[in-house]
């Protein structure tokens, strides 16, 4: 009789913070990890300062987004504070021509891919669904349907195979998405076809008000091997670990070995969106404990220990962040809503008689206000 391996956990290991790969302690001390170390052996202090800068700007633009929402400039905002390391670390590990499929919370990923200040506010303001051309940033429009983008990445990766390309497709999603059929189906498809794809699960502990223990009784990274996909569970607040893990994952996928999976264990410091009140569903002690694990201060401590962080650098980063957020504010205050007739644009790629008729009728209706507009 073949031996049965039982993997049934006896405790809630989905939140275990010790069973994680990390390279920086919460105090910023560099610790060795035999598996991850080789992937960042080239990383000098300048590169680490770049990671710090990205994370600091991502944090600031997030704060600005919340402020703009509170001031009535945006309809909604989905804060990402606390998740800067996984977003910046993994995105920085990608090549410019790797195609990324983010969720709506991947602010740091958008930033790294080259999104402009206006890109962060025009969608939440309701001016347009997609602010940038996905092909210019190799970045899909942030996905709102939970987990749908995992399949898009799997399909894109199948397309890379058929083109003979050496790019990688990446799907970003949260812990809640791992309960969705689409994420599981994406693991089946990408594994069965050995597609060059990386799954990045930002386990931020909460799916709106539902703790990760409602989604998983076992470490999320533990699921992937069941699909034939190797996985790593890393400290999502350690940008070096996230970068190293993603370099391992993209290298694995790029070299024809099929998909790889990363679970980055992190914490969403704010609400799910500006519409919910996290004090209703989680306690202050938990939030305070996670504040001690802040990804930005962790890297700062590490850099300071190497005399690679001084006031001049801090001021330079602050100035960059000021400039970026000023751009967001200017884009919000200066936003000009498109003409009403454009609501009917781009529904179809080719002429469509139904839309053409409605457009004609709406244009005629709008023209009835021409005199009124002229008198203003």
């Amino acid at each position: 009789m073949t031996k049965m391996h039982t993997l049934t956990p006896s405790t809630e290991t989905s939140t275990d913070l010790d069973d994680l790969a990390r390279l920086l302690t919460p105090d910023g001390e560099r610790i060795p990890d035999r598996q991850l170390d080789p992937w960042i052996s080239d990383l000098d202090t300048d590169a680490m300062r770049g990671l710090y800068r990205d994370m600091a700007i991502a944090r600031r633009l997030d704060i600005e987004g919340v402020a703009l929402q509170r001031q009535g400039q945006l309809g909604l905002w989905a804060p990402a504070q606390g998740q800067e390391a996984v977003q910046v670390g993994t995105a920085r590990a990608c090549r410019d021509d790797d195609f990324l499929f983010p969720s709506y919370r991947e602010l740091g990923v958008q930033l790294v891919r080259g999104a402009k200040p206006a890109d962060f506010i025009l969608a939440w303001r309701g001016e347009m669904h997609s602010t940038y051309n996905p092909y210019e940033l190799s970045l899909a429009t942030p996905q709102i349907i939970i987990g749908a983008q995992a399949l898009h990445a799997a399909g894109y990766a199948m397309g890379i195979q058929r083109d003979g390309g050496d790019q990688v497709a990446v799907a970003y999603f949260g812990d809640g998405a791992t309960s969705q059929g689409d994420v599981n189906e994406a693991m089946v498809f990408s594994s069965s076809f050995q597609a060059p794809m990386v799954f990045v699960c930002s386990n931020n502990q909460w799916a709106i008000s539902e703790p990760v223990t409602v989604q998983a009784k076992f470490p999320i990274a533990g699921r992937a091997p069941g699909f034939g996909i190797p996985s790593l569970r890393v400290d999502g607040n350690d940008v070096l670990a996230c970068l190293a893990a993603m370099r391992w994952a993209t290298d694995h996928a790029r070299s024809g070995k099929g998909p790889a999976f990363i679970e980055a264990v992190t914490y969403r410091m704010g609400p799910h969106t500006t519409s919910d009140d996290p004090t209703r569903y989680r306690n202050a002690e938990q939030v305070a404990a996670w504040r001690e694990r802040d990804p930005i201060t962790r890297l700062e401590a590490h850099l300071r220990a190497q005399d690679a962080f001084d006031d001049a650098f801090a001021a330079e980063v602050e100035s960059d962040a000021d400039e970026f957020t000023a751009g967001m504010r200017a884009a919000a205050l200066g936003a000009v809503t498109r003409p009403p007739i454009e609501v009917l644009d781009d529904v179809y790629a080719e002429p469509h008689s139904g839309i053409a008729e409605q457009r004609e009728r709406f244009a005629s209706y709008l023209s009835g206000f021409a005199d009124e507009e002229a008198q203003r």
Partner: protein
Amino acid sequence: MSELLTMGKALNAGLRRALADDDKVIVMGEDIGRLGGVFRITDGLIDEFGAPRIIDTPLAESGIMGTAVGLAFRGFRPVVEIQFDGFVYPAFDQIVCQVAKLHYRTRGNVTMPITVRIPWAGGVGAAEHHSESPEAYFVHTSGLRVVAVSNPQDAYMMLRQAIACDDPVVFFEPKRLYHTKDEVDLGADIADAAPMGLARVVRAGTDVTLLAYGAQVATALDAATAADDEGTSIEVIDLRSISPVDYPTVTASVRKTGRVVVTHEAAREAGVGAELIASITEKCFHYLEAAPERVTGHDIPYPPAKLEKHHLPDLDRILDAVDRVLERPNSLSGVES
């Protein structure tokens, strides 16, 4: 080079031609490779074009549709086979939230030239979930085009047009017509063909306009022949495209006849017939001589096979409705409503 072909063979020829014409065309679905699909529509394609282009997928409809989205993102033109009409529902989220919206969401930067082939509707004595008529769900979704074929020539040409179209097309294939034969011009160029969105008057008439699509076109023609014996002239229109509908062709007919009957297998409430009649009423109110009629499936879950003939609109139910729009006293069920 016209040939007598079944609709199934015509569809197979259409796929082969599309694959040969454009190497970005990819065919994907469950059992479509070695088996050639449960209806053999993809028969032999894997031998000719190879596994990279003819993809036997895992058994997951949302997975098939979602990966098709990714392939389209990458510049491919996926042709997805949903094995049976009733299996499209697990893919519904990807179709209505992603396939239909990505062009609009990205302001035209991303196109989704995906063709969703669905062996469709009843009349073949199938098991539960194998005879559904879900077209109204897709017609109601902006960003999709929805077509239904009624004969082998259209099957051959419209499938190629759908694949060449830069918009997503939900392509309904009446499975009870898979074995019906007709002449197909295999040399035809899609550039010369009637656009996919055009309706066709398949039988001219003067008294009543009868609108149908898919397998119901044949039933409508049977009804028109029977009515002709009684001296009633019915004009039968095969809509071919049910989103968008070719209203110029439809309204020209209604303005001529003043009376209209719509027939489809799908349930009545909020069905395609309701939309057609609302639009016809808006466009032709002063030409109408009588209230338009719908002859549809009942508002019931699809019944067991032994009872389906009582659900599917047949020649007699259509003629009954024709009597009503002609305000004839001999209507079988002409009760005041």
